[in-house]
């Protein structure tokens, strides 16, 4: 049996958890899910992705995200059920909860796996350097804990009974001490970077903060949002919330337009899953120009106004 930790934000299911269920099914036909808190809003979806049993950790701490308490609950369930592996989505939360579980179990954890093969030893392929490099590794453990790299496999539907089984984890005061106590900033009206279908991004080649108004104009016409590279936030030209990359936000929009971005691995880690990449750069040998679907060799300061004019004219036509 494979146990999959399901992440949700106050009832809203994290889609990467469904991808983890799909990976679990490829390892073993018997897949159980574990949820901290109320699974009612998405229990049917877990069953429709192959969960035979949904174990529900019942505790007042789970009214909002409590990472150590969740990790402890997952560890206790794993000790009781002795699954062959415990998986989760390789998101910030999934990695965090399994790291707590691994610490409680004194077991190895391999994060961001693209391939998992159970055995003695188990074998994994996992992402390093933000996915720019893969590591093949063996794991010496009777219980494998692993998280699944987001979007490594698509979630596939499968029939599962989805039987709900509640359990009461034994949690300490220390387990429940760290949890969300407050939330700041209601969802902004505009699209967020991670959700945007179009991202218009600028790098060092923008030359300064004032040039970003061109990117805002183009993003507005295309119904997208503005992103940037790490050097731009380090220089203080744009807020960090707009940074695309290994240390910023990882995006996978339909269209990514990179303006004056050379394409360091730090940045490519955040944008290489975009469906269509456009690069505008004076240097035709820049790595971004090599991975782009469309490469424009030239000065963005001269070309962007032309592109904005054409896009605006096209948008205003029926």
């Amino acid at each position, binding site marked *: 049996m494979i146990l999959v930790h399901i992440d949700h934000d106050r009832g809203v299911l994290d889609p990467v958890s469904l991808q983890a269920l799909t990976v679990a099914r490829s390892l073993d036909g018997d897949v159980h899910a574990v949820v901290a808190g109320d699974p009612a809003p998405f229990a049917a979806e877990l069953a429709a992705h192959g969960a035979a049993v949904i174990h529900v950790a019942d505790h007042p701490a789970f009214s909002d995200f409590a*990472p*150590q308490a969740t990790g402890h609950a997952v560890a206790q369930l794993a000790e009781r059920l002795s699954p062959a592996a415990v998986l989760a989505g390789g998101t*910030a939360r999934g*990695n*965090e909860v399994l*790291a*707590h579980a*691994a*610490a*409680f179990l004194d077991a*190895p*954890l391999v*994060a*961001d796996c693209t391939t998992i093969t159970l055995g003695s030893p188990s074998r994994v392929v996992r992402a390093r*350097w*933000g996915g*720019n*490099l*893969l*590591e*093949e*590794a063996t794991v*010496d*453990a009777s219980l494998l804990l692993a*998280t699944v790299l987001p979007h490594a496999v698509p979630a596939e539907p499968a029939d599962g009974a989805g039987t709900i089984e509640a359990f009461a984890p034994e949690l300490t005061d220390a387990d429940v*001490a*760290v949890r*969300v106590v407050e*939330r*700041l*900033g*209601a*969802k902004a009206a505009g699209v*967020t970077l991670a*959700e945007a279908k*179009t991202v218009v991004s600028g790098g060092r080649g923008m030359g300064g903060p004032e040039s970003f108004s061109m990117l805002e104009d183009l993003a507005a016409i295309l119904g997208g949002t503005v992103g940037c590279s*790490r050097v731009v*936030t380090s220089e203080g030209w744009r807020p960090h*919330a707009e*940074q695309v990359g*290994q*240390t910023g936000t990882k995006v996978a929009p339909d269209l990514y337009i990179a303006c004056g971005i*050379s394409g*360091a*691995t*730090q940045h490519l880690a955040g944008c290489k899953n975009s469906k269509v990449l456009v690069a505008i750069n004076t240097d035709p040998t*820049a*790595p971004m120009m090599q*991975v*782009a*679907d*469309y*490469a*424009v060799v030239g000065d963005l300061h*001269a*070309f962007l106004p*032309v592109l904005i004019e*054409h*896009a605006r004219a*096209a948008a205003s036509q029926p």
Partner: protein
Amino acid sequence: MEILVCIKRVPAVGSALILTDDSMEVDTRRLGFQLSPHEENAVEAAVQLVELHGGAVTLLSLGTQEAEEQLREQLAIGADRAIIAVTDGTEPDPQATATALVEAIRADGASFDLVLMGSESADVGGYQTGIRVAHALGLPVVTNVKGLSVDEGVARCERAVGSEREVFTVSLPAVITVRDGLNIPRYPSVPGRIKARKKPVTTHEVTLSAPRVVKQQLVVPPAAVKGTVQLTPDAAGATALVEAFREIGVLS
């Protein structure tokens, strides 16, 4: 306030990851080294907290003596002393990393109010060292922090979730792992660099436990073969792009 910042020296890879002949390491013969990115923010946060509340910042790096280069750089921005937990230079797995860090912290003997580190390293990206260290020290841990303040022994931590921020509060002592965007790290000043030369860097030998996650080899993922369409920076290029925007469906 006594603050410990755990930092990692990693290759500054820039735009290309080239492997050694045995595919076990990134070939660093032509590369410089740097601090793993989130940890620049951890040191900056520590220096700011000590400027505000008093105390001292200690740095700890696990690896080889060569980390002194990165430690001196961070001593120059305001950290007070540094410890190198010297290993045989092999790459530990995350459990061995945490165990060795904890051993070095205990051997140092100082009592720290706050232990800061990056949420994950740039090179290995295991997402667990901070949590394992916290468990071993019996301390609470908040991860992925992008906003941090301390008031009367309680740290207020913010982490980003989409456009929202979640707030966690935790009583010190605690472990907090931070992300890029927490602050804008300062550059070392010339007087800072001169002072840093005289600040103490001590070493402590640690023996790494055998890795349970054993690297077999590294692989550069095959690049998708793309026929890049070359366009000119003029009206013709703009027309071609607008046509592509329509095909993608982002321009109705």
